[in-house]
């Protein structure tokens, strides 16, 4: 009976291992994906403080907000005559290139020449004449077909389309997508091409078809507010960012004790990209105009909206929900900062959603299981030894294995980060590895009590 036990135990462990592998790879109920996402978001926050600011000097966002509508006694969607004024003002500050994150799918005033889309088209035409590339949001769908929406022809004629709608890649940001209108580039790549035309970039896809083959970007968000932001906005409510080490501990403690932290007065994390409001473009004082000119001239400018109930919001692991235009801005920032070596997921095996990183995760969990079994054997042999030997073999050796495992995990994450691959599920592995710590601490009270009894 006792001889059969190890076999039974081994078979049981193999079955359990097989079930675990299936759970990890097939991801029923999305538990594994949720854990992957939580781990990735946490690491994104951890790495945000040391994200380089190369792209930050090249990009600006102009936000059309409720305050602008109220100040100008207008409404949303903004009438074309109002929009023509906004883009006319922006043109005067000579941006390097402009992406407009508004979808002009309906002409509300087609019969009224004083209000119709032609007013805006006239201004967009001026961008073309000045040699300032202008990209307009496009869904990549045939307008009017099966009730689908897309930019009206009057505006596509005087701009270049940039794809803003895609599916099937989760939180990732594609460089180009094959749509029903043909292969189209997203705003980040379209603007990156403009940036590269004056800066020179390595590995830039030669055309849209080549860009289709490139993996989507796993966006790394930045943390530090640009210093010039304080020139145009009141930044006193923004959280001050400390050194990378300070931010690391701040993020770590926030991630661990977020349920205990109900301090509503805490300063907020302000946006990483230089942000101007549409109202800033209206300034009339010459010094103010010169300041806005310095901030916008030659930059890649993305125009978006932050209107209550308008609905275009995206989730940033660092900032929470932000207007959707910041997703394009951050993807562009990643391209400018890291070039075509941007962070990405490893390629999947065939048509599955499984890649070698998943196998790496399984390998790490396998290592934990192996170490657990190894230490169980050692502990079994050491149970009749002296208390000091038992502490060494049952407690310290397990803790040492755990430390080695964590060091390996940290090293692996650094290597993957340096290779621009998304990290493995660090949190998942870390939590499972706590089994070793639990096993290490379990015999400690018994050993101490026995030692105490012997001592008496």
């Amino acid at each position, binding site marked *: 009976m006792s001889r059969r036990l190890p076999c039974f135990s081994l078979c049981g462990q193999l079955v359990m291992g097989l079930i675990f592998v299936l759970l990890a790879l097939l991801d029923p109920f999305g538990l594994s994906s949720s854990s992957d996402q939580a781990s990735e978001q946490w690491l994104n926050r951890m790495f945000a403080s040391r994200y380089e600011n190369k792209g930050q000097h090249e990009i600006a966002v102009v936000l059309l*907000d409720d*305050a602008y509508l109220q*100040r100008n006694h207008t*409404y*949303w*969607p903004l*009438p074309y*005559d109002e929009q*023509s*004024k906004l883009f*006319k*003002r922006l*043109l*005067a500050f000579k941006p390097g290139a402009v992406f407009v994150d508004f979808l002009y799918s309906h002409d*509300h005033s087609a019969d009224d*020449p*004083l*209000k119709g889309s*032609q*007013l805006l088209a*006239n*201004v967009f*035409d*001026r961008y073309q*004449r000045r040699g300032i590339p202008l990209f307009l949001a496009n869904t990549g769908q045939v307008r009017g077909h099966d009730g689908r929406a897309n930019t009206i022809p009057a505006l596509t004629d005087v701009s270049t389309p940039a794809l803003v709608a895609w599916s099937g890649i989760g939180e990732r940001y594609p460089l180009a997508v094959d749509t029903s209108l043909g292969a189209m580039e997203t705003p980040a790549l379209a603007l990156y091409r403009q940036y590269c035309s004056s800066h020179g970039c390595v590995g830039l896809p030669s055309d849209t078809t080549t860009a289709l083959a490139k993996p989507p970007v796993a966006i790394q968000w930045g943390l530090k*507010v640009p210093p010039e*932001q304080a020139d*145009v*906005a*009141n*930044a006193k*409510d*923004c959280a001050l960012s400390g050194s990378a080490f300070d931010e690391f501990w701040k993020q770590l403690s926030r991630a661990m004790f977020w349920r205990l932290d109900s301090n509503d007065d805490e300063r*907020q*994390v*302000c*946006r990483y990209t230089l942000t101007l*409001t549409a*109202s*800033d473009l*209206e*300034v*009339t*004082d*010459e010094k*103010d105009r010169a*300041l806005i000119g310095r901030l916008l001239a030659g930059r890649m400018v993305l125009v978006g909206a932050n*209107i*209550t*109930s*308008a*609905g275009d*919001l995206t*989730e*940033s692991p660092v*900032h*929470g*929900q*932000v*207007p959707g235009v910041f997703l394009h801005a951050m993807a562009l920032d990643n391209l400018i900062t890291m070039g075509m070596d941007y962070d990405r997921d490893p390629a999947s095996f065939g048509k599955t959603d499984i890649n070698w990183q998943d196998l790496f995760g399984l390998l790490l969990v396998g290592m934990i299981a192996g170490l657990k079994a190894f230490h169980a054997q050692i502990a079994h042999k050491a149970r009749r030894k002296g208390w000091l030997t038992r502490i060494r073999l049952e407690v310290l050796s397990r803790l040492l294995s755990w430390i080695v495992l964590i060091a390996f995990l940290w090293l692996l994450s650094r290597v993957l980060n340096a290779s621009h691959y998304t990290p493995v599920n660090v949190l998942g592995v870390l939590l499972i590895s706590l089994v070793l710590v639990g096993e290490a601490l379990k015999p400690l009270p018994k050993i101490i009590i026995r030692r105490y009894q012997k001592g008496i």
Partner: protein
Amino acid sequence: MFRLTAVLIAVLASQTCAAAVANVEAFLADPVSILDDQGKVEREIARKDAPTQVLPILQYNEALELVQVDMAGRKVWLDPMDLRINPPLKVVQMPCERLSGSEKGLEKNHSTMGFGEGCNK
């Protein structure tokens, strides 16, 4: 009653005069776009070829932010952003709005904007 009417006429007349004395003092953009009354570019001229003398503003289209001036005997529309106008047509201070970041993440808004009478304007 007579005094009040006189004052009102004087105020209105002074505003008309003020509007009439707004002048284009300099051309800031290069090239300068010559526009039609809908803001469509008719032609562009190099700044060096633009008039150097002060040009009185004949009309101001506030809805499209365009000004009309007389250039070489021809009435044309210009973009005020390309010009230095004195006195300014309007004065807007830097708003210096409070910088926002993640505040949207804290609040939930379960509504969709309704399009009211504004869309029919």
